[in-house]
């Protein structure tokens, strides 16, 4: 029981590590925002532009040489099967060069691009911007409403719960109708006002619920920082992955919170029991995702991005659940 006594002595100090990591992630994302004007790297599905996918044996290098004679800003990606044989090439350009790319490719390949031999996807910049905005709204709301459910379930007192419901519905209306459509500074201020009010209420009325939110929030922020650091360009599917992450990450937090609040045994024994179950859950998911990622990797589809983000997020979730959330809730239960 050497570990247990060490843990009992130091668990509060352990909180310093996630605090530093969270702060570093937030600083990195802010710096990223200042540098690039956005908190993520967007791919063609979010910035607008054209992607042409052709089934061909011609190498990416040859295509690059051919296209670079007429266009400068483009990207070529190779897609191969599990044996490493090339199946397709994906060429992406900005929306305004869509026609030029098609002509250049047709000239080089010597045949017309039609639906039997190629795919073409074009999205205008304005529509993409709108999709992006709506996705951000969906993620923020998913997070806040998830938090509200956790609060309503774990807190006591009807009044605070009623307030939580009313404020979150108002937040929904605000996000749907005004957020980012009215002046961005004003909408940011209103959004922060909502967030501050809710977070204050959550901390005041239910520390365990707040711990769950903090852990989910850290998962998202740290994952985003790593995704940005790796230079991954996010697609709409990548944003879906963040939504999935919210769902997976709160599962273990809820398990932990329930076990500790409804415990019949000692705090540590409940905590270690929860740890055993929770890590089995997360590790099972991680292994399943790694396996799936290996299978689909060479195909370079949107699934790669979903699985990669989940992999990063779930690994961080192990840390955030069993260091951040566990320490806070142990602290809370022992001082109560």
């Amino acid at each position, binding site marked *: 029981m050497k570990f247990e006594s060490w843990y009992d002595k130091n668990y509060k100090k352990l909180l310093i590590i996630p605090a530093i990591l969270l702060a570093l992630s937030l600083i990195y994302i802010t710096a990223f925002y200042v540098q690039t004007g956005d908190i993520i790297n967007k791919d063609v599905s979010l910035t607008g532009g054209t992607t042409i996918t052709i089934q061909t044996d011609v190498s990416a290098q040859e295509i690059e040489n051919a296209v670079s004679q007429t266009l400068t800003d483009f990207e070529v990606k190779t897609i191969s099967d599990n044996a490493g044989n090339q199946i397709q090439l994906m060429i992406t350009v900005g929306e305004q060069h869509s026609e030029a790319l098609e002509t250049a490719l047709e000239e080089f390949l010597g045949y017309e691009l039609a639906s039997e031999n190629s*795919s073409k*996807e074009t999205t205008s910049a*304005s529509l993409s911007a709108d999709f992006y905005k709506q996705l951000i709204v969906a993620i923020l709301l998913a997070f806040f409403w998830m938090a509200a*459910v956790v609060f309503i379930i774990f807190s006591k007192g009807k009044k605070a719960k009623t307030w939580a419901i009313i404020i979150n519905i108002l937040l*929904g209306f605000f996000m749907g*109708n005004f957020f980012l459509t009215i002046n961005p500074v004003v909408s940011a201020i209103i959004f922060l006002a909502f967030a501050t009010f809710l977070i204050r209420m959550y901390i005041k009325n239910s520390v365990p619920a707040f711990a769950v939110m903090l852990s989910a929030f850290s998962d998202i922020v740290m994952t985003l920082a790593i995704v940005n650091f790796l230079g991954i360009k996010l697609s709409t599917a990548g944003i879906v992955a963040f939504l999935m992450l919210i769902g997976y990450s709160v599962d273990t937090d809820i398990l932990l919170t329930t076990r500790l609040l409804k415990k019949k045994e000692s705090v540590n024994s409940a905590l270690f029991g929860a740890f055993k179950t929770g890590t089995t*859950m997360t590790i099972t998911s991680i292994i399943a995702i790694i396996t799936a990622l290996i299978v689909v990797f060479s195909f370079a589809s949107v699934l790669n991005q979903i699985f990669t983000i989940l992999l990063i997020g779930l690994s961080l979730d192990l840390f955030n659940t069993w260091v951040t959330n566990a320490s806070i809730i142990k602290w809370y239960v022992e001082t109560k």
Partner: protein
Amino acid sequence: MKITFRIWLLIACVMLSLVAIFSIPPMIFEKGVIVSSVEQNSTIFESGLRTGMIITEINGQTITSIDDYSLAFAPLQNLGENETQKLTIKTETIEIINLFTKDVINDISVEKIPSSKIKTGLDLQGGARAFVKADVPLSDTQLADLISVSEQRLNVYGLSDVKFFKVVTSNQEKLMGIEIAGSSPDDLEELIAKQGHFEAKIGNETVFVGGNEDVTHVGRTGQDAFISECFEVEGGEACNFKFVIFLSEDAAQRHADITDELSINGSYLSKKLDFFIDEQLTSSLNIGASLKGNIATQIQISGSGSGATRQEAIEQAKIEMKTLQTILITGSLPYQLEIVKIDKISPNLGEQFTKQILLAGIFAILAVSIVVFVRYRKIKISFALVTVSLSEVLIILGVAASIGWNLDLPSIAGIIAAIGTGIDSQLIILDEARDKHESMVQRIKKALFIIVTAFTTTFVAMIPLTGFLGFMGIGAASAGLLKGFAVTTLIGITTGVLISRPAFADIAKQLEN
């Protein structure tokens, strides 16, 4: 092992899902080819052949594949312009014997009978999707008219398996969405964004064009527009419709001048009034003899629709009437169209993709069962967990098949998410069942509390993506693309919490006792 009510419920749901997916008798065993579209007003249509019928025999030859089908029609290729040949076509329900010209080859399109009722989305089966924007803000009625006109125009170009829908962006801009399954024409962009142009001609002379310059009013209700009569025709029923339009004086004068030149042929004039959409003839109407030389500002337009039953004929006539009315009202559209998004996905890519996903799924499940076995050291537990998870996949697919949901990539990501959280929940049940501090009932109760809480959080997190919150202004446009994710996740976690988790709790109890 005792099979409790909850376990029976799970088994029943899996059975029902299998029926929903494969139907009874299983579609895999059906022989023949399925009719994917039939040209309206063609001889074969009038003979009773409809979309969805299964052709099993042509001229005594059994049809089991597309190749058989093409072979059976091959002799018709050699027919001259107006020559006909007798064909006996057997479907599962009817037998058609008639004389056909070689046009019949193009009037019917057929496909392989699908092996299940699961429908896949554009990104998996190939096809085209476009979002079209007008350069002026559209009202709901204008958008409905635009959709109606576009539908008619794409029909003129022989595209019938087309889905139209409304898309609203967060700036309240209304867009028209179009989806075409399978391979799409290469000039789709032009086809969609080109101006629809309507003309009514007698001979070579234009009497009036669509739009309110020439057509001042179009009757749409009551005695101004109605189904006038229905009668039997060969192979079914036909119904006539009539509606009135009011022409401007200029147009009426043109009508008078042109008809004055025509001769009378029985009760009608010698030439017909022909309607053209984008320079293609769509219908011809007889002109009553009494209208000769008449400056008629009010003319009656009639036409017909046919079908196998009277009801079908009435419906068809109503549709034809509505299209005609819409075209007359809008004429060439009073605004420019711009394509803001167009995706054309080759059908070949989708196939490879589906294979990859299946492969990934199989390996992921293998991995999960190995991890669970390593942790619990009981093959039974591992087996039970994987079986329950697989039955969840089946139930999700079953529900998707019965509501006609198109499974696209986001939907598949949703299935993965639902199964992943499902496995998490089952692990919670297993561990609670093994925990010896409390009574079994209490432990299972605690497990279900955790599971219901987790379910509720995921549920509210998905709601903004479904588009149900449109009244709050949330997720209208993106929902169109990511709705699938939310829908399959919701189906999965809901069946999980209601059906498979209680069943698994019963199984876990028995495995532990």
